[in-house]
């Protein structure tokens, strides 16, 4: 298999309500410049571009089209788009490098959740005949999953609050984070429920943001980055959409993708867990031991730019390697209600 490494990553600050438009252009231009400058590349050097975003998040058809303005796509570029988190755009770009059609690829994701009513918009991801007409919102569905785990003895409300505590504390050293603070679990547990058994701190905040990752094949990676993060496993799977027909306290697609990608032995993992109990669930599904550092960035509980968050996990995991903090790192992305679809990217440092 052709060797490919992550050589660059940048993300915009995650803001509750950014100034930019739903096209993402204003968030993307600065981080494109940042990541190109860091790698010493010009836009013409990118052999394949791929983006992830959602029309429904933006409230208009073809919302990704205007984002292309941020690239300066003339002369014309080889480019594609997925209506999914940018992590899957990264996957498509990785495949392109594997075919030999490109040796440097760039994936980006963006989302302006503040434009719409995110909880209601996500209800439209559900079965259009049996569920969506009831408008079950994303927080309520996650809450059902949370209670199943509580009642099965898999996690407690205090365990969940502790995830939030760790997230906010870690985010104190993350300049892009939206939520960061020193808090105590007992104080969080004093707060009222948002959607019993979830409290506000159990849920990722609404925010706007964008992320970009550059990958290169073996021939180019070492000239672009001092310590490339070499991709040793990149897998994704999807579970059935029938929420009442699968065990929501597990995520078989995460476990399957993790096994296939070699998630077993990593030093650090950035998990795309928009709800506190999901971080606990995913740790188990991916077989991450207690010695694995999870979400040193604070995770998406500290800032959740929809459609960029998964991609940012991979970029942040790669950064753990490129800064010498880890020898093996994992980035995870999720999509759909209650962790229906999951992607795992495992990377390692090489001397």
């Amino acid at each position: 298999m052709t060797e490919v490494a992550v050589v660059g990553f940048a993300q915009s600050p995650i803001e509750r309500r950014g100034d930019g438009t739903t096209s993402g252009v204003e968030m993307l231009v600065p981080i494109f410049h940042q990541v190109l400058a860091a790698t010493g590349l010009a836009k013409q050097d990118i052999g394949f571009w791929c983006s992830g975003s959602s029309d429904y998040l933006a409230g208009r058809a073809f919302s990704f089209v205007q984002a292309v303005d941020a690239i300066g796509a003339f002369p014309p570029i080889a480019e594609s788009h997925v209506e999914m988190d940018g992590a899957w755009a990264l996957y498509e770009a990785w495949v392109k490098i594997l075919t030999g059609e490109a040796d440097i690829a760039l994936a980006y994701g963006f989302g302006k959740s503040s434009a719409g009513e995110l909880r209601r918009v996500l209800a439209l991801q559900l079965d259009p005949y049996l569920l969506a007409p009831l408008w079950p919102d994303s927080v309520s569905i996650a809450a059902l999953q949370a209670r199943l785990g509580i009642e099965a003895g898999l996690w407690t409300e205090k365990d969940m609050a502790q995830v939030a505590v760790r997230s906010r504390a870690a985010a104190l050293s993350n300049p892009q984070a939206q939520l960061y603070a020193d808090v105590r679990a007992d104080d969080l547990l004093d707060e009222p429920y948002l959607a019993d058994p979830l409290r506000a701190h159990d849920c990722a905040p609404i925010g706007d943001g964008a992320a970009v990752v550059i990958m290169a094949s073996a021939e180019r990676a070492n000239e672009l980055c001092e310590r490339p993060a070499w991709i040793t496993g990149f897998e994704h799977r999807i579970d059935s959409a029938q929420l009442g027909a699968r065990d929501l306290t597990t995520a078989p697609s995460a476990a399957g993708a993790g096994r296939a990608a070699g998630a077993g032995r990593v030093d650090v993992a950035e998990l795309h867990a928009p709800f506190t109990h999901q971080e606990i669930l995913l740790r188990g599904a991916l077989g991450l031991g207690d010695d694995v550092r999870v979400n040193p960035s604070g995770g998406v509980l500290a800032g959740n730019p929809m459609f960029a968050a998964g991609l940012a996990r991979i970029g942040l995991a790669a950064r753990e390697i490129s800064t010498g903090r880890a020898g093996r790192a994992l980035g995870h992305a999720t999509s759909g209600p209650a962790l229906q679809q999951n992607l795992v990217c495992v990377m390692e440092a090489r001397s």
Partner: protein
Amino acid sequence: MEIGFDYTRSLGPTLSQFMTALAGRRILGSRGADGRVHAPPFEYDPVTFAPPAELVEVGPQGTVTTWSWAGTPLDGQPLARPFAWALIRLDGADTAMLHAVDAGSPAAMRTGMRVRPRWADSPAGHIRDITCFEPCTAPAPGREQAPRQEPVAMMTTPVRLRYEHTASPGETAYLHGLAAGRLLGQRCPACGKVYVPSRGVCPTDGVATAEQVELPGTGIVTTFCVVNVPFRGQRVTPPYVAAAVLLDGADIPFQHLVLGCDPGEVRMGMRVKAVWKPREQWGTTAENIECFQPTGEPDATYESYAHHL
């Protein structure tokens, strides 16, 4: 801005049976290849991917397998007062159905409790024929047998979403300019082209554009069409000319209307000028310009605008 439509969904064979049964106050499930009964039914088995071999009646009562509390219901949800979402395994089924339970308070909810459907007064063959579930301990409703329904093949589902759109800094400058009766474009520092409307970024260079350029309200029609067809959401009555107007000094045409003459008189290269609405009607919108009108000057030569086509 609200995006709304009443989507009309055809159901196909499996869901038609399910919805027809709902209209008759019965709930059906499907039997999977592994013997498990799924309620609501699957259209395609999650294990074998095959359509169901048979549909069987389940419920109507069931058991709550998990729940959460909706203290502040959102638009469109089953109840306007606080309620519980629940996964409910109907009697005879092996999987659970997601619906609402009108329990009154979270204290009345518990995993393992028994619930039954509360049927809508006029069933339509829709998942909302079950208004919600209620605890079996609630007083039993006086139950009328629903009349036999015609088979249900379609359902309608309204979708209404509200979005707040923001203008970019470049667009904002352009819109404020319009509010003051001015047409403002921006020049790209890399290629030097003048863009109107200004978008804040040059699409060929991917760099921010900040240099403001004021443009006159005169220009030419590079190309156009005559719109004859009415459609939902249209704001101008056909026939009307939708034109690409290249303002003097701009490097890219923009879309506007050409009115004030017979559509048949409009030509490629025709010189036009902006017709502004009365000042008191101005806002931050391109609609401040009612339309463009021919000036009567000689047409521009084809060669002068051919590269803008």
